[in-house]
């Protein structure tokens, strides 16, 4: 067991963990942060994406011990303390960028990071930036719209883009 101390969604936490424990397992099983989900076992799907010291990571690809001393933000810590949604969360709802919602936490966390790196991405840049996150419901169409919307590009939110 190794002792780790870190900040998760603004709260300081400290635990003894097995060296093999993944960050996503730590978040879900020890902290009850079940907003972050596990969709695969090969680091392909990105459903578990969180921010580690401000950068998006797949939390299945980080050991809990590697997060020692770091600041982690999950989907549960993205909205403001008063409940005001992050603009990317709001954009996903506005543009119907989710259906079943399982990929959504990872998709939103990745989109936030993408827009931080590139506030005015082209459609191509958005698509490449989300390549590591799989969605089976939306066909990505409205996820791309949501990122454009959050970037203030006035993306169409209507159903018919004719």
């Amino acid at each position, binding site marked *: 067991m190794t002792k780790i101390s870190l900040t998760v969604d603004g709260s300081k936490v400290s635990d003894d963990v097995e060296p093999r424990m993944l960050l996503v*397992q730590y978040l*879900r*099983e020890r902290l*009850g*942060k*079940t*907003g*972050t*989900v*596990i*969709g*695969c*076992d*090969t680091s*392909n*799907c990105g*459903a578990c994406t969180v921010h580690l010291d401000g950068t998006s990571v797949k939390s299945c690809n980080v050991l809990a011990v590697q997060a020692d001393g770091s600041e982690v933000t*999950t*989907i*549960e810590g*993205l*909205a403001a303390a008063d409940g005001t*949604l992050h603009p990317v*969360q709001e954009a*996903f*709802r*506005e543009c*119907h960028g*989710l*259906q*079943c*919602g*399982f*990929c*959504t*936490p990872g998709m*939103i966390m990745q989109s936030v990071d993408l827009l931080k790196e590139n506030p005015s991405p082209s*459609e191509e840049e958005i*698509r*490449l930036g*989300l*390549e*590591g*996150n*799989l969605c*089976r*419901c*939306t*066909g*990505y*169409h*409205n*996820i*791309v719209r949501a990122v454009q919307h959050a970037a203030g590009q006035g993306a169409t*939110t*209507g*159903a*018919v*883009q*004719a």
Partner: protein
Amino acid sequence: MTAIQERPAAEIGQERRRKEDQRLITGRTRWTDNLTLPGMLHLAMVRSPFAHARIVSIDVSEARTAPNVVDVLTGADLGESQGVNINAWPITPDQVAPVHLPMPSDRVAFAGEVVAVVVARSAAEARDAAELVDVDYEELPAALDLKEAAAATDQEGVLAHPDLGTNRSAFWKFDSAEAGTGGDVDEAIQQARADGIVIEREYRQQRLIPAFMEPRSVVVDPTGEQLTMWSATQVPHILRFALAATTGVPESKIRVIAPDVGGGFGGKLQTTPEEWITWAVARRIGKPVKYTETRSESLVSGHHGRDQWQKLTLAAEKDGTVTGLKVELLADMGAYVSLVGGGVPVLGAFMFNAIYKFPSYQFNCQTVLTNKTWTDAYRGAGRPEATFAIERLMDELAAEVGVDPLAIREKNWIRHEEFPFTTVAGLEYDSGNYEAATARAKELFGYDELRAEQQARRASGDRVQLGIGVSTFTEMCGLAPSRVLGQLDYGAGGWEHASVRMLATGKVEVVTGASAHGQGHETAFSQIVADRLGVAFEDVEVLHGDTQISHKGLDTYGSRSLVVGGEALVRAADKVIERARPIAAHMLEASVDDLEFSGGRFAVRGTDQGVAIGEVATAVFAAHDLPDGVEPSIDSEATYDPVNFNFPHGTHLCAMEVDTETGELKMRKYVCVDDIGTIINPLIVAGQVHGGLVQGIAQALWEEAVHDESGTLVSGSFVDYLLPTAADTISFEIDHTTSPATTNSLGTKGVGEAGTIASTPAVVNAVVDAVRHLGVHDIQMPCTPERVWRAVNGAGSGGSTEGAAMPHFGDQEAAGNQEQPGTASTEGAGA
């Protein structure tokens, strides 16, 4: 009770943002795997690495002593308590099907089958101990190739289940001459051979994996008076029924909950061995138990979809007027006949004739057992296979006649003034307008301009050629009239149930038997009820997915929730109004006959006197002053059995660029105009269409479940099974024409499967169209660059892809399930 004044004129048709989203975008979710109960234990499964083997012995001693292991159980330990996994649709009376025990103790029939289960205090400890279970197998020959399996007998070849003496599960036939719905197809083919056109093709529907994003998970709590199962399922009601029917627990003692469910696409339309094992373990140990599969387990053990060989013969006159269609299918069931099983290809039986006026038609389907993962419904279920076949054939016919693919379709389709139209398969299409959808699609697509560009590229010998693919599809959805299901030997009905509860505070609780897993029922159903009862959208709460709340239902699949479940809801709401009417009259001191209900308010005709339905609900709650003999409730319920299937249609147009030197493909444009009748929420509809399109496009271009020569699934992780990403796909242009359905009150048609059904042939038609002038008339799916390159270079339809699917395994030959289509007969299918 003034909410009615704030309502928009009509909720139906509004792009309401979804009620479901707030919790999903903030991580406040209830996926089954998120549940933790006091004292809960965790399971890990031990799975067979062999496709077919006898279990000689299972040594659990070492696993049993591992840290925090509570028990290790085999099929022999569980015995009859494990129940059995059922097939609800034996398609013929003499269907051959092996008994499907959740955990067999003597023989495994596919790689991935469970042979032992470890129970431990944590999931990690259970998984560690599962590695310590020592199973001694005696490997048996495995039946893997579909055609070979169909041809095998107890004398020759390999049997998936030797005791059965055959791999042939069932043979199902429809013949229009026998049914009296059309002529004799063999005569039509004979006539066409003499003096017309005969198109003969063999197409492969490759095996796909539904690959919902949420891995399946199940929690069973045996500690209450009712045993409770939470499961990531599309079918909580069917699950409850099957548990009761097979495990000896009275149905009234079983509560099944489908909490937030992360996608299904048919893949969670199942009753699974893992659910049954978890049920049995929890009952045995008396503690809450959870099992959550890994993605790799999901891909190998969750049911697969498609997997057919299709032998097709289309007869036509010289001018391209179709005269007959004969279909001979081989359908791979995998190792067991699953819940819907052979019913999946049979659902396609009525759709091969599609929108065209075939005078004669015959459908033959042989279902076959193999030692591969079992197959069942995957988005579209039978109808994508049928649509692919007919839409590819119509392109081939157009090429033969030498006309535009749209012209050959128009020559043969049902004209809009001919509805309702009874097809050669015996279905009555209630409404549609193929001309209007096609005209709109051509306009959006810029059809004539793209055809001109195609000509220019061909003329200049451009390295990158342009292809235009057409798919004018229809489908049958809204499963289904119970009477028809009975005629087809399905084990249940096709009705749906709804109830509407009027709360004292003016809020409305709606309970539906449909069970959403991403479709947005809470939003769309709220819109329907808000309009029907004249209450605020926000005041409607939609409850579902828990058999103790929604005690009655048949769940969500087959694009049925809106067209069947929505109609039940309309009827329940109408009953509320009728029950409220005499009470409103009493409150207004008026005659019932003088009341009219509009905008949520009962008004006395010709006066300004009125009372809102919410006020009636409050009066009923108090019950201080009701008319004599009137029950103090206006809550109502309805169970609706559809009178007919439902027939959405549309025209899909796809432009593909094909690099003739490398085989690289690029989707340039995709336009679809779907006629799905009245639209409740355009935003939700668009999402369904987009997602459906990409799943169908993925079959055309990327996805394939590949087994190696020993029956191991080599595309068994997301590294190897190629789900499309945002970078692989494009934005779509979608629109709608509207021919309201005539068989439900709202005029709605299903939309959940439309995109998937329509898009696969549109894409393949585009790819083939791009290189048809180079002598190519087919490319096998998925149309990988390698296959396209090979086809362009004269190697038929591109050959098998197993080498590319399993790069880690070197250059070995594999996957007998993938050979080239050819002139060899689809052995065993057809008369």
